[in-house]
């Protein structure tokens, strides 16, 4: 019962704030900054926060399909609403559509970007409709993982050479006669197929097509303690539930980064996750624009909030509140500190 209410409450909060947007629209305000979303004027949900936000634009943050992205947003929403008194709404959107939406101002900011060098080129470098809001904090670590029980049983899997040797254990009907390597969401650009070829590993990459499908498959194997090897990344709250161990690939080098995609033979680059915001945000909501440029935390922080919501079934607000009240100095640095350092997505990501 609780999880449904959780979603419900999360909605109510977001929706309540959005009600203001709806009212503005009806009264003829500029639609381009405040359209869309599920608006609902809840009687009680957000009256406290809305008190000081009479003439302030709604801040729209994009939640991507992973729970960490939601963790960023609920905490940011809590702070923006309570300390900066702007109404906030969260919308669920795929990563790519989020870019044009941010460019047009329909989205105020995205707090976690993994790569997306093409979009960066088009909207940040190209037409200046989006600005780089600096480093988010967590280092995205993409790579090959196996469940820890498997790593214990087969210590040689610590490096790719072990995989090269043990490929038979990963054979499935889908990949037969080769071993199966499980890739996830199509939104992640992966080098796995090239790696198999260039590292001479007799495995076939099976694209799960969605992260939900990939996770389901991993969980099924995990339940039965079966061998499985897959593309995975941190930060990821599931890592708090399931024990995965990383398989070492040949180290990433700048030389390797320059290779064409089909020739890649090294590990994934470390992703310095970064934030983006609409270019007009500093003028329409200066306090929020500044906050976003200062927002910075660790993957541990993020995992904790995500875990609270997804596993402990805490409501979004409760999880955010718990985090904010136990990290006062951190939050203060977001409000009064300095901008985070600018990081640029490496090409090909």
């Amino acid at each position, binding site marked *: 019962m609780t999880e*449904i209410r959780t979603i*419900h409450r999360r909605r109510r909060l977001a929706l309540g704030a959005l009600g203001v947007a709806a009212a503005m629209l009806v009264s003829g305000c500029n639609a381009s900054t405040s*359209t869309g979303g599920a*608006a*609902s004027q809840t009687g*009680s949900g957000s009256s406290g926060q809305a008190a000081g936000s009479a003439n302030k634009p709604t801040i729209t943050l994009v939640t991507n399909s992973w729970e960490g992205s939601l963790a960023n947003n609920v905490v940011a929403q809590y702070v923006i609403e309570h300390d900066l008194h702007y109404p906030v709404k969260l919308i669920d*959107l795929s990563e790519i559509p989020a870019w044009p939406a941010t460019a047009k101002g329909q989205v105020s900011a995205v707090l976690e970007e993994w790569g997306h060098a093409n979009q960066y080129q088009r909207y940040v470098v190209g037409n200046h409709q989006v600005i780089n809001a600096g480093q988010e904090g967590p280092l995205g670590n993409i790579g090959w993982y196996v469940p820890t029980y498997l790593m214990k049983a087969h210590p040689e899997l610590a490096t790719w050479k072990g995989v090269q040797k043990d490929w038979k254990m990963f054979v499935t009907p889908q990949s037969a006669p080769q071993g199966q390597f499980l890739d996830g969401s*199509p939104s992640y650009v992966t080098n796995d197929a090239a790696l198999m070829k260039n590292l001479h590993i007799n495995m076939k990459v099976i694209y799960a097509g969605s992260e939900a499908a990939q996770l389901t*498959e991993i969980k099924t194997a995990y339940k039965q303690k079966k061998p499985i090897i897959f593309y995975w990344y941190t930060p990821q709250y599931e890592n708090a539930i399931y024990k995965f161990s990383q398989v070492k690939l040949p180290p990433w080098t700048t030389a390797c980064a320059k290779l064409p995609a089909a020739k890649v033979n090294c590990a994934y680059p470390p992703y310095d996750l970064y934030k983006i915001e609409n270019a007009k945000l500093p003028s329409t909501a200066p306090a929020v624009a500044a906050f976003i440029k200062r927002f910075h935390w660790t993957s541990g922080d993020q995992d904790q909030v995500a875990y609270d919501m997804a596993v402990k079934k805490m409501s979004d607000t409760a999880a955010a509140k718990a985090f904010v009240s136990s990290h006062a100095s951190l939050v203060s640095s977001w409000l009064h500190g300095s901008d985070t350092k600018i990081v640029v997505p490496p090409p090909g990501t």
Partner: protein
Amino acid sequence: MLAHGEIAVAEGAVDAPSPRAAAPGNGPSSPHRPAVCWLLSAGGAVAVVAAAAALSGFHAGFPARWNPGVAGGFSSLDNWVTAHQQSNFFLGTVIGDISTVLAVCTNGLLSFLTWMTWVGVLAAAGAASWLAGGWRTASFSAVVVAVLGLSGLWGESMATLSLMAVAIILSVLVGLPLGVAAAVWRPVGQLVRPVLDVMQMLPSYAYLVPVVILFSIGNPAGIVATFIYAVPPIVRFTQLGITTVGGDVVEAAAAFGATRGQVLRKVELPLALQSILLGLNQVIMMALSVVVIASLVGTGGLGDSVLQALNVVNVGDAFTAGIVIVLMAMALDRSSGAFGGRIGRSGRRSARQLALLWGAVVLVVLAAHYGAGLGDFPSGWSLSVSTPINTALSTLQNRLYHFASIPVVGGTSNLSSFLTLDVLNPLQRVLTALPWWVVLAVVGGAGWLFGGLRRALLLGACVVAIGLMQVWSATTVTLSQVVVALVLDLLIGIPLGIAAYRSRAVDRLLRPVLDLLQTMPAFVYLIPVVLFFSVGNVAGVVASLVYALPAAVRATTLGLRSVPVDVVEAGDAFGATARQRLGKIELPLARPYLLLAVNQTIMLVLAEVIVAGLVGAGGLGYSVVVGLERDQFGQGLTAGLSIVLLGVIFDRLTQGRSRAGTFTSAT
């Protein structure tokens, strides 16, 4: 609720000139110089294939060097739109204004629903469905409204409801005049039909990015995406309704000196009303089937709940939201269906009754809002089925997944291995190994056989287009899955359809299950499918199979029911056993419907290709998803268009067969 079936019947009726015209050798010019003509065209066809073979050689698939750069072209179009979106008057101002209007309408409606309070919504829904269909319909709607609240998804439901309402109204506003135009001016009709085909068959995934770029994110983009998918039925049914008005009635009106406009307004439109309402009913069902897709562009609502649940792999939550979508669809379907059924029958309520009823509703709303100070459905009153569903599913997986858990077949994992290793992979290997011109010859030949030269040319062009878009191998992967899903669907669906025809009890039992399968967003069973069948092509086949099964079952039952009773009785009178009756009379006579079952099943399986792509089945579905997720618009669109082309090929093959195969023209 045989949504798609009815559409196809309608389509056939609209453009079928006569059963004979589609039969081979019966083309307009054939009676006088058939033999020579036939020989020449046959020779020509062989020459074309031989030339194609000589040009590309005996290599598997389609030559990669024949690449006109379709995908690249689409992508640059996308880039151009992005670049000029602000400066171009049409792209910027006109579309911007449309977006604004759509957003204002949706948000206004949602605010109004919220203002009405949940009690008010309950009262209004009850009153409206009572007017449409009486007490049964009204109580069903009321129960549904209550469930919306109890599920804990009240806000989401209202958001979805307002979005759907605006999308449906938009569809009617555009679709109705278009349907009239298509009926009145033949060229418009001819132009509109393929466009509607593409709108209905092209996966929304393939055009979500440009829709987002052009229209504002959130509701406007969601409405436009829904509109594109949902508008075809109302155009088709309006056209159908008007074109099937009896010539004698129109003649009578003309005899009294009515002008063309008067005939349209006073005779044709009123007589077509029933058909138009059927179209509206279809629009509603189609719109509700893309709720989740609309949420991909940030519309929120129930679709969002499904997506959020998927993100954290919580089937129970996804299922809860899915059920709410299904119930909402069923309530709207029943009310609109009942309303359509009432047209032309007596029993209209008097103006006084209406005033009283709506007056009462307004009073309830005012009392609830101002008097009781109610708002959204109380969140304390929720009933969660999420945890039991998750537990049940987990238990089921433990029971069914392992081998030896089911007699003979083994567990679902064995079944999955068998299908992959012994069915799908070999089939795919064969299809992949075929040179493209062999496929051209087979498809073109079949088209010729079933529909004459014109059809052969059309289908041949489709094959070549798929090749030129450079998605040949993905298409063969998808094709193998479509074929297997089709065969399995028929193997399961036809016996079920027969059982439902034979036994009322089975029919009654099956009906809600089929309704559920047909309206449940496929995203909901994405995880269960993987739970039981593992990531891969079998999961894709099963997902499509589940979605398309209702069409196969329903068309079979419908076909058997359509067999004239006197013919069946004649069989009985001569002492045929039940089996003899089925095999010698009922099934042969239901053949047009069985072909419809094949046709519809393929169309629905193709509609599910995207979901197949989401569970690791690869193929065109995966390419379309990648197109959206990685900003490869051109690749996504070409894959999407290939799905459309596959659809056209299958559709024309199965439709043509059923027409040419009517008994009159068989000599």
